[in-house]
């Protein structure tokens, strides 16, 4: 039963010391990702979603808490992780422009993981493998193998990033806002590439984004974060039909949509108000209380715990605490 969960995060905290104070980027979150599924991680700025991804992949050490991958404790930064782990966990970053070394050619960028993990012996083998990877992300190898990032478009850069991430056939990939910087039609193409790859490789993913419409189409489960805390976790369909947390409702009602059917889906009567709080001095108790239309006395004093309201559906809100 435990083998079902490829990633388990327990009480993870990540704080950053800055001259302005301690930034509580991730403040005690726990979640589990089932093998072969895509967990969507949604939040606005300051939510801690990107930081979570960075800590899981090892770019930052956790301040406290544990991360389990395939039941092994990996709560250490990259330098301390075994090399095989870096074959198995990969990441696609948000900014296409800075994700690729401007001075290298595509063949070397995508080929680096193959070289590092000694998966190819000769130059011909390298080019063969890279060509296959490029084809998988729909970039014709003849055109792209020897180009530099500066000559290709944003969508194509992200496709290269994806090819690089899957080069070593990892079991787990973290996608950190991979299409936020891309045009609408390019985003569609890249998302479809990702979906195809996930199907073919039976990939488990953590998909970080702020775009709820995208989330609907790509994830099997959704986690909502606000100011370093988890607000709600639910399977995707349940989440969109029955959003429980007031923040979730506010998010959904703010999403701009194109069709009448989508309009119907948005929660009515809850408007977006207030500014997102500061992660250095977060509001007391429930961090969302200054903006919450249902805030009660207890919300200012006590942080709500994450409870399972129905199977697989978790909420951290005092409105549901009694039940």
């Amino acid at each position, binding site marked *: 039963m435990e083998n079902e969960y490829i990633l388990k995060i327990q009480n993870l905290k990540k704080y950053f010391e800055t001259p302005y104070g301690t930034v509580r980027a991730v403040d005690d979150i726990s979640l589990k990702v089932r093998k072969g599924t895509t967990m969507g991680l949604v939040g606005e700025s300051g939510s801690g979603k990107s930081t979570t991804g960075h800590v899981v992949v090892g770019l930052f050490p956790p301040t406290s808490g544990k991360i389990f991958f395939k039941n092994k404790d990996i709560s250490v930064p990259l330098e301390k992780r075994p090399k095989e782990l870096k074959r198995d966990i990969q990441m696609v970053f948000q900014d296409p422009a800075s994700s690729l070394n401007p*001075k290298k050619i595509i063949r070397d960028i995508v080929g680096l993981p193959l070289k590092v993990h000694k998966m190819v012996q000769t130059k011909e083998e390298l080019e063969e493998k890279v060509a296959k990877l490029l084809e998988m992300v729909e970039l014709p190898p003849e055109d792209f193998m020897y*180009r530099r990032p500066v000559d290709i478009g944003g969508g194509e850069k992200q496709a290269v990033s994806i090819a690089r991430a899957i080069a070593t056939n990892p079991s787990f990939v973290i996608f950190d806002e991979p299409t936020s910087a891309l045009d609408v039609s390019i985003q569609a193409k890249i998302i479809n590439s990702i979906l195809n790859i996930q199907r073919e490789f039976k990939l488990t993913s953590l998909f970080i984004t702020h775009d709820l419409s995208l989330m609907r189409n790509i994830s099997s489960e959704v986690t909502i974060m606000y100011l370093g805390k988890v607000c709600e976790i639910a399977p995707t369909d349940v989440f969109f039909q029955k959003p429980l947390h007031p923040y979730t409702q506010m998010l959904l009602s703010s999403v701009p949509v194109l069709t009448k059917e989508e309009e119907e889906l948005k929660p009515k009567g809850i408007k977006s108000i207030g500014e997102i709080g500061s992660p250095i001095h977060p509001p007391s108790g429930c961090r969302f209380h200054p903006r919450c239309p249902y805030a009660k006395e207890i919300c200012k004093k006590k942080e709500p715990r994450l409870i399972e309201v129905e199977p697989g559906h978790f909420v951290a809100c005092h409105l549901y605490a009694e039940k």
Partner: protein
Amino acid sequence: MSRATILSEWWKTLEIKKKWYNFRRSPLSLIGLIISLSTVILAIFAPWIAPYPEHAGFYTDFEHANLPPSWQHLFGTDEFGRDVLSRTIFGFRYSLMMAAVVLTLVVPAGVILGLIAGYYRERWIGKLIMRISDIFIAVPPLVLALSVCSLLTPSAFNAMMAVSLMWWPWYTRLLYNITSSIKEEYFVYAAKVTGASSAHIMFKEIFPNAMGAVLTKITLDVGWVILLGASLSFVGLGAQPPTPDLGTMVSDGAKFLPDYWWISMFPALAISYIILGFNLLGDGIKDAFEG
């Protein structure tokens, strides 16, 4: 892909055409290029270009000493009767040689130290390297070079060593700054996540992005190293007579000012010519890589 195609593809990746376009947009850069090339040509082909190559070494002809500029001697002659023009042309050779030797020693060492210091800036090794380089930078260049030279026997070689000793920290500092900022770029993170070694990241990921700045600095430094070398020779700590070093020539001729002005003036102008040329070229190279 055939070897020829790979080579031609690699050539294309250098983006020479774009860099050349950016370079030639400024007429001053082109002037700089011409001047720099001319100094290099003069330096290399000195024995064939100079009208009186033998005057560059030990030569005396007191009958024709201190002659003003004329058609036989375009730059006049000095106190020993040597042709100033020929000696100036040979002077280019020694100056550029000094720049070449110093930079060949200083650039690799400074760059490697800078990469390491920047990459490990939070660790003790990074801080140690930067503090050492700070010490060298804090001392004014001429003072440092003078102290070193006076401890050792004055010679061209020792002058080069002295200049090298105080020049390396600038490259370390440059690379430290560049490395510090680049190492936070996502492509470096990506390389780390992939499992690449620190050595790979420093030399194959970060350094190629510093090439433009390093090349620009090298070009600009040619002028300044030569000036520093000439300053040392001016006070007698560099190349010794009869070597036709530009700085020595200015110094030797100084005592004849203002009567026999040509003995100092032309070598001094030559120094300015070199510095001007490489400065303009350096600006052009900066444009080429940035533009």
